[in-house]
Protein backbone atom coordinates (compact mmCIF):
# COMPACT_ATOMS: atom_id res chain seq x y z
CA UNK A 1 0.00 0.00 0.00
CA UNK A 2 1.08 3.51 -0.68
CA UNK A 3 1.43 5.94 2.20
CA UNK A 4 -1.46 8.34 2.82
CA UNK A 5 0.45 11.42 1.69
CA UNK A 6 1.40 9.72 -1.54
CA UNK A 7 -2.28 9.15 -2.21
CA UNK A 8 -3.38 12.72 -1.57
CA UNK A 9 -0.83 14.63 -3.60
CA UNK A 10 -1.43 13.02 -7.01
CA UNK A 11 -5.21 13.14 -6.40
CA UNK A 12 -5.18 16.89 -5.95
CA UNK A 13 -3.03 17.39 -8.99
CA UNK A 14 -5.28 15.26 -11.22
CA UNK A 15 -8.26 17.24 -9.95
CA UNK A 16 -6.71 20.54 -11.09
CA UNK A 17 -5.55 19.25 -14.41
CA UNK A 18 -8.93 17.62 -14.85
CA UNK A 19 -10.78 20.95 -14.86
CA UNK A 20 -8.07 22.73 -16.79
CA UNK A 21 -7.88 19.83 -19.18
CA UNK A 22 -11.62 19.96 -19.73
CA UNK A 23 -11.48 23.65 -20.59
CA UNK A 24 -8.46 23.12 -22.81
CA UNK A 25 -10.16 20.28 -24.67
CA UNK A 26 -13.29 22.40 -25.06
CA UNK A 27 -11.39 25.35 -26.51
CA UNK A 28 -9.58 23.12 -28.98
CA UNK A 29 -12.81 21.50 -30.17
CA UNK A 30 -14.21 23.44 -33.12
CA UNK A 31 -17.69 21.99 -32.60
CA UNK A 32 -17.68 23.18 -28.99
CA UNK A 33 -16.74 26.70 -30.02
CA UNK A 34 -19.39 26.64 -32.75
CA UNK A 35 -22.03 25.39 -30.34
CA UNK A 36 -21.01 28.03 -27.80
CA UNK A 37 -21.34 30.78 -30.40
CA UNK A 38 -24.79 29.58 -31.44
CA UNK A 39 -25.99 29.45 -27.83
CA UNK A 40 -24.53 32.91 -27.14
CA UNK A 41 -26.24 34.41 -30.20
CA UNK A 42 -29.49 32.78 -29.13
CA UNK A 43 -29.20 34.28 -25.65
CA UNK A 44 -28.47 37.75 -27.03
CA UNK A 45 -31.41 37.54 -29.45
CA UNK A 46 -33.72 36.34 -26.69
CA UNK A 47 -32.72 39.17 -24.35
CA UNK A 48 -32.76 41.96 -26.93
CA UNK A 49 -35.60 40.61 -29.09
CA UNK A 50 -37.66 43.85 -29.15
CA UNK A 51 -34.66 45.87 -30.36
CA UNK A 52 -33.58 43.60 -33.19
CA UNK A 53 -36.34 44.40 -35.69
CA UNK A 54 -38.80 47.27 -36.10
CA UNK A 55 -41.86 45.00 -36.18
CA UNK A 56 -44.21 43.53 -33.59
CA UNK A 57 -44.29 39.72 -33.35
CA UNK A 58 -48.05 39.47 -32.77
CA UNK A 59 -49.74 42.50 -34.37
CA UNK A 60 -51.44 41.64 -37.66
CA UNK A 61 -51.10 43.72 -40.84
CA UNK A 62 -53.71 42.83 -43.41
CA UNK A 63 -52.04 44.78 -46.22
CA UNK A 64 -48.83 42.71 -45.95
CA UNK A 65 -50.06 39.10 -46.14
CA UNK A 66 -47.71 36.33 -47.31
CA UNK A 67 -45.03 38.65 -48.71
CA UNK A 68 -42.03 36.74 -50.01
CA UNK A 69 -38.60 37.54 -48.51
CA UNK A 70 -37.45 41.07 -49.37
CA UNK A 71 -35.28 43.83 -47.93
CA UNK A 72 -38.07 45.10 -45.68
CA UNK A 73 -38.95 41.58 -44.55
CA UNK A 74 -35.80 39.43 -44.92
CA UNK A 75 -37.67 36.20 -44.21
CA UNK A 76 -41.03 37.28 -45.60
CA UNK A 77 -44.35 37.67 -43.78
CA UNK A 78 -46.91 35.10 -42.66
CA UNK A 79 -50.61 34.75 -43.41
CA UNK A 80 -51.45 37.54 -40.96
CA UNK A 81 -48.87 39.94 -42.36
CA UNK A 82 -46.49 39.51 -39.42
CA UNK A 83 -42.76 39.76 -40.07
CA UNK A 84 -41.36 36.22 -39.91
CA UNK A 85 -37.88 37.27 -38.79
CA UNK A 86 -39.34 39.15 -35.83
CA UNK A 87 -41.41 36.15 -34.83
CA UNK A 88 -38.43 33.83 -35.12
CA UNK A 89 -36.29 36.16 -33.01
CA UNK A 90 -38.99 36.28 -30.33
CA UNK A 91 -39.21 32.50 -30.64
CA UNK A 92 -35.68 32.27 -29.18
CA UNK A 93 -37.18 33.30 -25.86
CA UNK A 94 -39.61 30.42 -25.86
CA UNK A 95 -37.01 27.92 -27.02
CA UNK A 96 -34.65 28.89 -24.20
CA UNK A 97 -37.45 29.07 -21.66
CA UNK A 98 -38.60 25.59 -22.64
CA UNK A 99 -35.08 24.19 -22.69
CA UNK A 100 -34.17 25.57 -19.27
CA UNK A 101 -37.58 24.80 -17.73
CA UNK A 102 -37.63 21.22 -18.95
CA UNK A 103 -34.07 20.49 -17.86
CA UNK A 104 -34.74 22.04 -14.45
CA UNK A 105 -37.65 19.63 -13.93
CA UNK A 106 -35.66 16.68 -15.25
CA UNK A 107 -32.71 17.52 -13.00
CA UNK A 108 -34.89 17.98 -9.93
CA UNK A 109 -36.71 14.68 -10.42
CA UNK A 110 -33.95 12.63 -12.04
CA UNK A 111 -31.03 13.59 -9.84
CA UNK A 112 -33.04 13.27 -6.63
CA UNK A 113 -34.34 9.82 -7.54
CA UNK A 114 -30.88 8.75 -8.69
CA UNK A 115 -29.25 9.88 -5.45
CA UNK A 116 -31.88 8.18 -3.32
CA UNK A 117 -31.85 4.96 -5.34
CA UNK A 118 -28.07 4.72 -5.41
CA UNK A 119 -27.48 5.69 -1.80
CA UNK A 120 -30.15 3.66 -0.05
CA UNK A 121 -30.25 0.69 -2.42
CA UNK A 122 -32.40 -2.32 -1.61
CA UNK A 123 -36.17 -2.00 -1.86
CA UNK A 124 -36.18 1.78 -2.50
CA UNK A 125 -33.70 1.25 -5.30
CA UNK A 126 -35.74 -1.45 -6.99
CA UNK A 127 -38.96 0.55 -6.80
CA UNK A 128 -37.30 3.61 -8.35
CA UNK A 129 -35.63 1.50 -11.02
CA UNK A 130 -38.96 -0.11 -11.94
CA UNK A 131 -40.44 3.36 -12.33
CA UNK A 132 -37.64 4.31 -14.70
CA UNK A 133 -38.32 1.11 -16.63
CA UNK A 134 -41.89 2.28 -17.05
CA UNK A 135 -40.63 5.48 -18.63
CA UNK A 136 -38.79 3.18 -21.01
CA UNK A 137 -41.90 1.18 -21.81
CA UNK A 138 -44.11 4.05 -22.89
CA UNK A 139 -42.89 5.94 -25.97
CA UNK A 140 -41.93 9.41 -24.78
CA UNK A 141 -44.01 11.39 -27.24
CA UNK A 142 -47.04 9.19 -26.57
CA UNK A 143 -46.79 9.94 -22.86
CA UNK A 144 -45.97 13.61 -23.43
CA UNK A 145 -48.93 13.98 -25.79
CA UNK A 146 -51.22 12.38 -23.22
CA UNK A 147 -49.89 14.50 -20.35
CA UNK A 148 -49.92 17.77 -22.29
CA UNK A 149 -53.40 16.97 -23.60
CA UNK A 150 -54.83 16.18 -20.19
CA UNK A 151 -53.16 19.23 -18.64
CA UNK A 152 -54.68 21.33 -21.40
CA UNK A 153 -51.96 22.76 -23.65
CA UNK A 154 -49.98 25.98 -23.23
CA UNK A 155 -46.22 26.47 -22.91
CA UNK A 156 -46.18 25.86 -19.18
CA UNK A 157 -47.87 22.49 -19.59
CA UNK A 158 -45.55 21.51 -22.44
CA UNK A 159 -42.61 22.15 -20.12
CA UNK A 160 -44.22 19.95 -17.48
CA UNK A 161 -45.07 17.22 -20.00
CA UNK A 162 -41.61 17.07 -21.57
CA UNK A 163 -39.95 17.43 -18.16
CA UNK A 164 -42.01 14.53 -16.85
CA UNK A 165 -40.70 12.11 -19.47
CA UNK A 166 -37.00 12.87 -19.91
CA UNK A 167 -35.65 12.50 -16.35
CA UNK A 168 -34.97 8.80 -16.67
CA UNK A 169 -31.47 9.23 -18.09
CA UNK A 170 -30.44 11.44 -15.17
CA UNK A 171 -31.67 8.91 -12.63
CA UNK A 172 -29.68 6.10 -14.19
CA UNK A 173 -26.62 8.30 -14.69
CA UNK A 174 -26.60 9.61 -11.12
CA UNK A 175 -27.41 6.21 -9.62
CA UNK A 176 -24.44 4.62 -11.37
CA UNK A 177 -22.16 7.42 -10.19
CA UNK A 178 -23.46 7.14 -6.64
CA UNK A 179 -22.84 3.40 -6.60
CA UNK A 180 -19.21 3.97 -7.54
CA UNK A 181 -18.90 6.94 -5.16
CA UNK A 182 -20.09 4.78 -2.26
CA UNK A 183 -17.00 2.62 -2.68
CA UNK A 184 -14.67 5.62 -2.44
CA UNK A 185 -12.77 6.26 0.79
CA UNK A 186 -13.95 9.88 1.00
CA UNK A 187 -17.54 8.74 1.57
CA UNK A 188 -16.42 6.32 4.22
CA UNK A 189 -14.40 9.12 5.80
CA UNK A 190 -17.38 11.45 5.80
CA UNK A 191 -19.48 8.80 7.50
CA UNK A 192 -16.70 8.04 9.95
CA UNK A 193 -16.54 11.64 11.18
CA UNK A 194 -20.27 11.45 11.81
CA UNK A 195 -21.94 13.11 8.82
CA UNK A 196 -25.63 12.32 8.49
CA UNK A 197 -27.06 10.69 5.36
CA UNK A 198 -28.33 14.02 4.05
CA UNK A 199 -24.93 15.64 4.45
CA UNK A 200 -23.11 12.73 2.87
CA UNK A 201 -25.48 12.73 -0.10
CA UNK A 202 -25.58 16.47 -0.72
CA UNK A 203 -22.04 17.55 0.20
CA UNK A 204 -19.96 14.52 -0.69
CA UNK A 205 -21.73 12.35 -3.25
CA UNK A 206 -23.64 14.96 -5.27
CA UNK A 207 -20.53 16.91 -6.36
CA UNK A 208 -18.90 13.63 -7.40
CA UNK A 209 -21.79 12.87 -9.77
CA UNK A 210 -21.91 16.33 -11.34
CA UNK A 211 -19.57 15.94 -14.32
CA UNK A 212 -21.66 13.45 -16.33
CA UNK A 213 -24.84 15.27 -15.31
CA UNK A 214 -23.54 18.60 -16.58
CA UNK A 215 -22.33 16.95 -19.75
CA UNK A 216 -25.79 15.56 -20.34
CA UNK A 217 -27.78 18.76 -19.71
CA UNK A 218 -26.77 20.44 -22.96
CA UNK A 219 -27.85 17.38 -24.93
CA UNK A 220 -31.14 17.20 -23.09
CA UNK A 221 -31.86 20.88 -23.75
CA UNK A 222 -31.58 19.97 -27.44
CA UNK A 223 -33.99 17.05 -27.07
CA UNK A 224 -36.39 19.15 -24.98
CA UNK A 225 -36.57 21.85 -27.64
CA UNK A 226 -37.30 19.23 -30.33
CA UNK A 227 -40.03 17.55 -28.30
CA UNK A 228 -41.65 20.78 -27.21
CA UNK A 229 -41.71 21.99 -30.82
CA UNK A 230 -43.33 18.71 -31.82
CA UNK A 231 -46.02 19.07 -29.15
CA UNK A 232 -46.72 22.64 -30.24
CA UNK A 233 -46.84 21.44 -33.83
CA UNK A 234 -49.50 18.88 -32.84
CA UNK A 235 -51.53 21.70 -31.33
CA UNK A 236 -50.90 20.70 -27.72
CA UNK A 237 -48.32 23.30 -26.82
CA UNK A 238 -47.95 27.01 -27.42
CA UNK A 239 -51.14 28.40 -28.90
CA UNK A 240 -51.30 31.02 -31.64
CA UNK A 241 -50.41 33.87 -31.76
CA UNK A 242 -47.45 32.90 -29.54
CA UNK A 243 -44.33 33.11 -31.73
CA UNK A 244 -43.12 29.64 -30.76
CA UNK A 245 -41.33 27.86 -33.60
CA UNK A 246 -43.31 24.61 -33.54
CA UNK A 247 -46.61 26.48 -33.38
CA UNK A 248 -45.48 28.73 -36.24
CA UNK A 249 -44.79 25.67 -38.40
CA UNK A 250 -48.18 24.19 -37.58
CA UNK A 251 -49.76 27.53 -38.38
CA UNK A 252 -47.97 27.88 -41.68
CA UNK A 253 -48.64 24.34 -42.85
CA UNK A 254 -51.69 25.20 -44.93
CA UNK A 255 -49.77 27.90 -46.76
CA UNK A 256 -46.84 25.63 -47.57
CA UNK A 257 -47.55 25.59 -51.32
CA UNK A 258 -47.88 29.37 -51.72
CA UNK A 259 -45.39 30.54 -49.14
CA UNK A 260 -42.47 28.17 -48.67
CA UNK A 261 -40.75 30.57 -46.29
CA UNK A 262 -43.39 30.10 -43.56
CA UNK A 263 -42.76 26.37 -43.48
CA UNK A 264 -38.99 26.66 -43.84
CA UNK A 265 -37.42 29.31 -41.63
CA UNK A 266 -38.88 28.38 -38.22
CA UNK A 267 -37.66 24.83 -38.88
CA UNK A 268 -34.18 26.11 -39.69
CA UNK A 269 -34.26 28.11 -36.46
CA UNK A 270 -35.07 24.96 -34.49
CA UNK A 271 -32.36 23.05 -36.32
CA UNK A 272 -29.63 25.62 -35.68
CA UNK A 273 -30.58 25.88 -32.02
CA UNK A 274 -30.66 22.14 -31.48
CA UNK A 275 -27.44 21.74 -33.46
CA UNK A 276 -25.79 24.32 -31.20
CA UNK A 277 -26.77 22.48 -28.02
CA UNK A 278 -25.85 19.12 -29.57
CA UNK A 279 -22.40 20.34 -30.66
CA UNK A 280 -21.75 21.86 -27.29
CA UNK A 281 -23.14 18.86 -25.44
CA UNK A 282 -21.06 16.36 -27.42
CA UNK A 283 -17.93 18.41 -26.90
CA UNK A 284 -18.71 18.87 -23.21
CA UNK A 285 -19.11 15.14 -22.78
CA UNK A 286 -15.81 14.48 -24.49
CA UNK A 287 -14.10 17.20 -22.47
CA UNK A 288 -15.45 16.05 -19.11
CA UNK A 289 -14.93 12.38 -19.86
CA UNK A 290 -11.49 12.07 -21.47
CA UNK A 291 -11.71 8.30 -21.38
CA UNK A 292 -14.64 8.40 -23.74
CA UNK A 293 -12.75 10.61 -26.15
CA UNK A 294 -9.88 8.18 -26.27
CA UNK A 295 -12.27 5.31 -26.72
CA UNK A 296 -14.05 6.90 -29.66
CA UNK A 297 -10.96 8.01 -31.56
Amino acid at each position, binding site marked *: MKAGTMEITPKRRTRETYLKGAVRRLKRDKAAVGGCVIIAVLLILAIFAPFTTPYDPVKQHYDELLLSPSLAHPLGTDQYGRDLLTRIVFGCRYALLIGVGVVAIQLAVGVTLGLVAGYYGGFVDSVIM*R*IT*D*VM*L*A*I*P*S*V*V*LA*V*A*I*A*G*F*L*GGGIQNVIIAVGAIGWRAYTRLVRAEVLSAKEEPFVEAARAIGCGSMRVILCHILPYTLAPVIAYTSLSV*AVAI*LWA*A*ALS*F*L*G*LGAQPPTPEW*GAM*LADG*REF*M*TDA*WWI*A*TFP*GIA*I*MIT*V*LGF*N*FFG*DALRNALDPKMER*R*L*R
Partner: protein
Amino acid sequence: MVLVPVLFIVTILISSLMYLSPGDPVRVMLGFRAHEEAVAKIRAELGLDKPYYVRYLKWLGNIARGNLGRSLQRNEDVREMIRERLPATLEMAVFAVIVAVLLAIPTGVISATRVNTFIDNVVSFFSLFWISMPGFWIAMISVMLLSMKLNLFPISGRAGPPWTVEGLRYLALPGLILGIRQVAIISRLIRAGMLEILNEDYVRTARSKGLAERIVIYKHALRNAMIPTVTIFGLQIPELLSLSVIIETVFAWPGTGRLLVDAVLKRDYTLVQGIVLVYALLVILMNLIVDLLYAYIDPRIKHE
Protein backbone atom coordinates in the same frame (compact mmCIF):
# COMPACT_ATOMS: atom_id res chain seq x y z
CA MET B 1 -36.97 -5.11 -17.78
CA VAL B 2 -38.95 -6.99 -15.18
CA LEU B 3 -42.27 -7.40 -16.89
CA VAL B 4 -44.91 -7.78 -14.21
CA PRO B 5 -44.00 -4.88 -11.92
CA VAL B 6 -43.43 -2.64 -14.93
CA LEU B 7 -46.84 -3.48 -16.37
CA PHE B 8 -48.37 -2.90 -12.95
CA ILE B 9 -46.88 0.60 -12.66
CA VAL B 10 -47.83 1.33 -16.28
CA THR B 11 -51.48 0.61 -15.50
CA ILE B 12 -51.39 2.80 -12.37
CA LEU B 13 -49.83 5.60 -14.39
CA ILE B 14 -52.34 5.32 -17.21
CA SER B 15 -55.35 5.10 -14.93
CA SER B 16 -54.28 8.22 -13.08
CA LEU B 17 -53.61 10.27 -16.22
CA MET B 18 -57.15 11.62 -16.04
CA TYR B 19 -56.40 13.35 -12.73
CA LEU B 20 -54.02 15.66 -14.54
CA SER B 21 -56.92 17.61 -15.95
CA PRO B 22 -57.45 20.82 -14.07
CA GLY B 23 -60.88 20.76 -12.46
CA ASP B 24 -63.50 18.15 -13.16
CA PRO B 25 -62.50 16.02 -16.17
CA VAL B 26 -66.11 15.44 -17.12
CA ARG B 27 -66.81 19.17 -17.09
CA VAL B 28 -63.72 19.76 -19.19
CA MET B 29 -64.80 17.03 -21.58
CA LEU B 30 -68.41 18.12 -22.02
CA GLY B 31 -67.82 21.86 -21.86
CA PHE B 32 -68.73 24.14 -19.02
CA ARG B 33 -72.31 24.71 -20.09
CA ALA B 34 -73.22 21.01 -20.11
CA HIS B 35 -76.38 19.91 -18.34
CA GLU B 36 -76.01 18.63 -14.82
CA GLU B 37 -77.75 15.38 -15.86
CA ALA B 38 -75.36 14.69 -18.70
CA VAL B 39 -72.40 15.34 -16.40
CA ALA B 40 -73.81 12.97 -13.78
CA LYS B 41 -74.47 10.32 -16.42
CA ILE B 42 -70.95 10.39 -17.82
CA ARG B 43 -69.51 10.49 -14.34
CA ALA B 44 -71.44 7.34 -13.44
CA GLU B 45 -70.39 5.75 -16.74
CA LEU B 46 -66.74 6.42 -15.97
CA GLY B 47 -67.28 5.39 -12.38
CA LEU B 48 -65.97 8.75 -11.24
CA ASP B 49 -68.41 8.72 -8.33
CA LYS B 50 -66.50 5.83 -6.77
CA PRO B 51 -63.15 6.00 -4.96
CA TYR B 52 -59.95 5.67 -6.97
CA TYR B 53 -58.93 2.16 -5.96
CA VAL B 54 -62.38 0.75 -6.82
CA ARG B 55 -62.19 2.29 -10.27
CA TYR B 56 -58.62 1.21 -10.77
CA LEU B 57 -59.38 -2.40 -9.88
CA LYS B 58 -62.47 -2.40 -12.09
CA TRP B 59 -60.48 -0.95 -14.98
CA LEU B 60 -57.71 -3.46 -14.38
CA GLY B 61 -60.23 -6.29 -14.41
CA ASN B 62 -61.65 -4.99 -17.66
CA ILE B 63 -58.36 -4.67 -19.47
CA ALA B 64 -57.31 -8.09 -18.23
CA ARG B 65 -60.32 -9.42 -20.10
CA GLY B 66 -59.37 -7.33 -23.13
CA ASN B 67 -62.09 -4.77 -22.60
CA LEU B 68 -60.69 -1.28 -23.06
CA GLY B 69 -64.03 0.47 -22.67
CA ARG B 70 -65.94 2.64 -25.10
CA SER B 71 -64.77 5.83 -26.72
CA LEU B 72 -66.35 8.80 -24.98
CA GLN B 73 -66.65 10.85 -28.14
CA ARG B 74 -67.66 8.27 -30.70
CA ASN B 75 -69.20 5.60 -28.49
CA GLU B 76 -67.29 2.87 -30.30
CA ASP B 77 -65.39 0.00 -28.77
CA VAL B 78 -61.87 1.27 -28.07
CA ARG B 79 -60.34 -2.12 -28.73
CA GLU B 80 -61.95 -2.26 -32.17
CA MET B 81 -60.80 1.29 -32.99
CA ILE B 82 -57.22 0.44 -32.06
CA ARG B 83 -57.31 -2.89 -33.88
CA GLU B 84 -58.41 -1.11 -37.03
CA ARG B 85 -55.53 1.36 -36.85
CA LEU B 86 -52.71 -0.75 -35.44
CA PRO B 87 -51.67 -2.52 -38.69
CA ALA B 88 -50.95 0.82 -40.36
CA THR B 89 -48.67 1.89 -37.49
CA LEU B 90 -46.87 -1.46 -37.34
CA GLU B 91 -46.40 -1.50 -41.09
CA MET B 92 -44.72 1.90 -41.02
CA ALA B 93 -42.56 0.92 -38.04
CA VAL B 94 -41.41 -2.32 -39.67
CA PHE B 95 -40.67 -0.55 -42.94
CA ALA B 96 -38.64 2.04 -41.03
CA VAL B 97 -36.69 -0.65 -39.19
CA ILE B 98 -35.85 -2.38 -42.46
CA VAL B 99 -34.70 0.91 -43.99
CA ALA B 100 -32.69 1.67 -40.87
CA VAL B 101 -30.91 -1.68 -40.79
CA LEU B 102 -30.21 -1.74 -44.53
CA LEU B 103 -28.71 1.74 -44.51
CA ALA B 104 -27.13 1.91 -41.07
CA ILE B 105 -24.93 -1.17 -41.29
CA PRO B 106 -23.03 -0.16 -44.46
CA THR B 107 -22.79 3.49 -43.36
CA GLY B 108 -21.50 2.54 -39.93
CA VAL B 109 -19.00 0.05 -41.34
CA ILE B 110 -17.76 2.48 -43.98
CA SER B 111 -17.20 5.29 -41.52
CA ALA B 112 -15.48 2.93 -39.06
CA THR B 113 -13.11 1.49 -41.66
CA ARG B 114 -12.29 4.92 -43.03
CA VAL B 115 -11.98 6.84 -39.77
CA ASN B 116 -11.51 10.60 -40.08
CA THR B 117 -11.56 10.52 -43.88
CA PHE B 118 -13.83 12.68 -45.98
CA ILE B 119 -16.60 10.05 -46.12
CA ASP B 120 -16.49 9.51 -42.36
CA ASN B 121 -16.76 13.24 -41.70
CA VAL B 122 -19.62 13.64 -44.16
CA VAL B 123 -21.52 10.78 -42.52
CA SER B 124 -20.91 12.15 -39.01
CA PHE B 125 -21.90 15.64 -40.01
CA PHE B 126 -25.01 14.45 -41.82
CA SER B 127 -26.09 12.31 -38.86
CA LEU B 128 -25.72 15.18 -36.43
CA PHE B 129 -27.69 17.43 -38.76
CA TRP B 130 -30.41 14.88 -39.23
CA ILE B 131 -30.75 14.28 -35.49
CA SER B 132 -30.99 18.02 -34.91
CA MET B 133 -33.91 18.55 -37.27
CA PRO B 134 -37.43 18.14 -35.89
CA GLY B 135 -39.00 15.04 -37.45
CA PHE B 136 -42.22 16.81 -38.30
CA TRP B 137 -40.31 19.53 -40.10
CA ILE B 138 -38.35 17.05 -42.20
CA ALA B 139 -41.70 15.51 -43.08
CA MET B 140 -43.20 18.87 -44.01
CA ILE B 141 -40.26 19.89 -46.15
CA SER B 142 -40.16 16.49 -47.87
CA VAL B 143 -43.84 16.75 -48.70
CA MET B 144 -43.29 20.25 -50.01
CA LEU B 145 -40.32 19.33 -52.20
CA LEU B 146 -40.77 15.67 -53.14
CA SER B 147 -44.55 15.38 -53.26
CA MET B 148 -45.81 18.82 -54.23
CA LYS B 149 -43.00 20.17 -56.40
CA LEU B 150 -41.57 16.98 -57.93
CA ASN B 151 -44.65 14.74 -57.72
CA LEU B 152 -42.49 11.77 -56.68
CA PHE B 153 -44.69 10.59 -53.84
CA PRO B 154 -48.34 10.94 -52.88
CA ILE B 155 -48.91 13.83 -50.47
CA SER B 156 -50.60 11.94 -47.66
CA GLY B 157 -52.81 9.05 -46.66
CA ARG B 158 -52.58 5.29 -47.01
CA ALA B 159 -53.74 3.34 -50.05
CA GLY B 160 -53.64 -0.23 -48.81
CA PRO B 161 -51.34 -2.98 -47.59
CA PRO B 162 -47.62 -2.48 -48.31
CA TRP B 163 -47.36 -5.48 -50.66
CA THR B 164 -49.42 -3.67 -53.28
CA VAL B 165 -47.68 -1.11 -55.49
CA GLU B 166 -50.08 1.66 -54.52
CA GLY B 167 -49.74 0.84 -50.83
CA LEU B 168 -45.95 0.91 -51.05
CA ARG B 169 -46.01 4.21 -52.88
CA TYR B 170 -47.93 5.83 -50.04
CA LEU B 171 -45.81 4.15 -47.38
CA ALA B 172 -42.45 5.04 -48.94
CA LEU B 173 -41.99 8.65 -47.91
CA PRO B 174 -43.20 8.51 -44.27
CA GLY B 175 -41.43 5.18 -43.81
CA LEU B 176 -38.16 6.53 -45.21
CA ILE B 177 -38.26 9.61 -43.01
CA LEU B 178 -38.92 7.50 -39.94
CA GLY B 179 -36.18 5.05 -40.91
CA ILE B 180 -33.44 7.52 -41.83
CA ARG B 181 -33.75 9.06 -38.38
CA GLN B 182 -32.74 5.72 -36.92
CA VAL B 183 -29.93 5.38 -39.47
CA ALA B 184 -28.35 8.53 -38.12
CA ILE B 185 -28.37 7.11 -34.59
CA ILE B 186 -27.53 3.47 -35.30
CA SER B 187 -24.71 4.10 -37.76
CA ARG B 188 -22.91 6.21 -35.14
CA LEU B 189 -23.26 3.33 -32.69
CA ILE B 190 -21.98 0.78 -35.16
CA ARG B 191 -19.06 3.08 -35.95
CA ALA B 192 -18.12 3.46 -32.29
CA GLY B 193 -18.50 -0.27 -31.66
CA MET B 194 -16.47 -1.21 -34.73
CA LEU B 195 -13.66 1.19 -33.84
CA GLU B 196 -13.27 -0.46 -30.49
CA ILE B 197 -13.39 -3.97 -31.91
CA LEU B 198 -11.01 -3.35 -34.81
CA ASN B 199 -8.27 -2.90 -32.21
CA GLU B 200 -8.95 -6.28 -30.60
CA ASP B 201 -6.47 -9.11 -30.76
CA TYR B 202 -8.78 -11.49 -32.56
CA VAL B 203 -9.21 -9.04 -35.42
CA ARG B 204 -5.43 -8.86 -35.78
CA THR B 205 -5.30 -12.65 -35.62
CA ALA B 206 -7.95 -12.93 -38.32
CA ARG B 207 -6.02 -10.52 -40.52
CA SER B 208 -2.67 -12.16 -39.93
CA LYS B 209 -3.96 -15.59 -40.82
CA GLY B 210 -4.78 -14.13 -44.20
CA LEU B 211 -8.54 -13.79 -44.16
CA ALA B 212 -10.03 -11.42 -46.69
CA GLU B 213 -10.60 -7.97 -45.21
CA ARG B 214 -14.30 -8.28 -46.09
CA ILE B 215 -14.63 -11.37 -43.93
CA VAL B 216 -12.68 -9.79 -41.09
CA ILE B 217 -14.92 -6.76 -41.14
CA TYR B 218 -18.29 -8.38 -41.59
CA LYS B 219 -17.83 -11.68 -39.83
CA HIS B 220 -15.44 -10.92 -37.01
CA ALA B 221 -15.91 -7.25 -36.28
CA LEU B 222 -19.45 -6.39 -37.30
CA ARG B 223 -21.07 -9.30 -35.57
CA ASN B 224 -19.51 -8.30 -32.28
CA ALA B 225 -20.23 -4.63 -32.87
CA MET B 226 -23.88 -5.57 -33.35
CA ILE B 227 -24.29 -6.70 -29.74
CA PRO B 228 -24.21 -3.25 -28.12
CA THR B 229 -25.99 -1.87 -31.17
CA VAL B 230 -28.91 -4.23 -30.70
CA THR B 231 -29.15 -3.13 -27.06
CA ILE B 232 -29.41 0.49 -28.04
CA PHE B 233 -31.75 -0.41 -30.85
CA GLY B 234 -34.07 -1.99 -28.29
CA LEU B 235 -33.97 1.26 -26.33
CA GLN B 236 -34.57 3.11 -29.56
CA ILE B 237 -37.90 1.37 -30.31
CA PRO B 238 -39.97 3.72 -28.13
CA GLU B 239 -38.26 6.63 -29.88
CA LEU B 240 -39.24 5.21 -33.24
CA LEU B 241 -42.86 4.85 -32.13
CA SER B 242 -42.69 8.37 -30.69
CA LEU B 243 -41.62 9.86 -33.96
CA SER B 244 -44.19 7.78 -35.81
CA VAL B 245 -46.94 9.57 -33.86
CA ILE B 246 -45.74 12.83 -35.34
CA ILE B 247 -45.07 11.48 -38.83
CA GLU B 248 -48.52 9.90 -38.91
CA THR B 249 -50.06 13.25 -38.12
CA VAL B 250 -48.15 15.04 -40.87
CA PHE B 251 -48.97 12.38 -43.47
CA ALA B 252 -52.57 11.81 -42.34
CA TRP B 253 -51.53 8.17 -41.92
CA PRO B 254 -54.46 6.23 -40.43
CA GLY B 255 -52.51 4.67 -37.56
CA THR B 256 -52.77 4.65 -33.79
CA GLY B 257 -50.48 7.68 -33.48
CA ARG B 258 -52.87 9.95 -35.28
CA LEU B 259 -55.74 8.39 -33.40
CA LEU B 260 -53.96 9.30 -30.17
CA VAL B 261 -53.47 12.93 -31.16
CA ASP B 262 -57.10 13.20 -32.23
CA ALA B 263 -58.27 11.55 -29.03
CA VAL B 264 -56.15 13.89 -26.89
CA LEU B 265 -57.39 16.98 -28.72
CA LYS B 266 -60.99 15.80 -28.25
CA ARG B 267 -60.34 14.80 -24.62
CA ASP B 268 -61.49 11.24 -25.25
CA TYR B 269 -60.05 9.85 -22.03
CA THR B 270 -60.85 6.17 -22.43
CA LEU B 271 -59.46 6.14 -25.96
CA VAL B 272 -56.23 7.86 -24.85
CA GLN B 273 -55.80 5.39 -21.99
CA GLY B 274 -56.38 2.47 -24.33
CA ILE B 275 -53.87 3.72 -26.88
CA VAL B 276 -51.16 4.48 -24.31
CA LEU B 277 -51.62 0.99 -22.90
CA VAL B 278 -51.33 -0.58 -26.35
CA TYR B 279 -48.14 1.39 -27.02
CA ALA B 280 -46.66 0.20 -23.74
CA LEU B 281 -47.53 -3.43 -24.58
CA LEU B 282 -46.05 -2.94 -28.05
CA VAL B 283 -42.75 -1.68 -26.65
CA ILE B 284 -42.55 -4.52 -24.13
CA LEU B 285 -43.28 -7.05 -26.87
CA MET B 286 -40.67 -5.57 -29.18
CA ASN B 287 -38.12 -5.63 -26.37
CA LEU B 288 -38.79 -9.33 -25.97
CA ILE B 289 -38.10 -9.79 -29.66
CA VAL B 290 -34.85 -7.84 -29.28
CA ASP B 291 -33.87 -10.13 -26.40
CA LEU B 292 -34.42 -13.12 -28.65
CA LEU B 293 -32.30 -11.46 -31.32
CA TYR B 294 -29.38 -11.40 -28.88
CA ALA B 295 -29.27 -15.14 -28.73
CA TYR B 296 -29.10 -15.24 -32.50
CA ILE B 297 -26.33 -12.65 -32.79
CA ASP B 298 -24.35 -13.76 -29.78
CA PRO B 299 -24.49 -17.54 -29.28
CA ARG B 300 -22.69 -17.15 -25.95
CA ILE B 301 -25.90 -15.80 -24.43
CA LYS B 302 -27.75 -19.02 -25.18
CA HIS B 303 -25.35 -21.08 -23.10
CA GLU B 304 -25.69 -18.98 -19.98
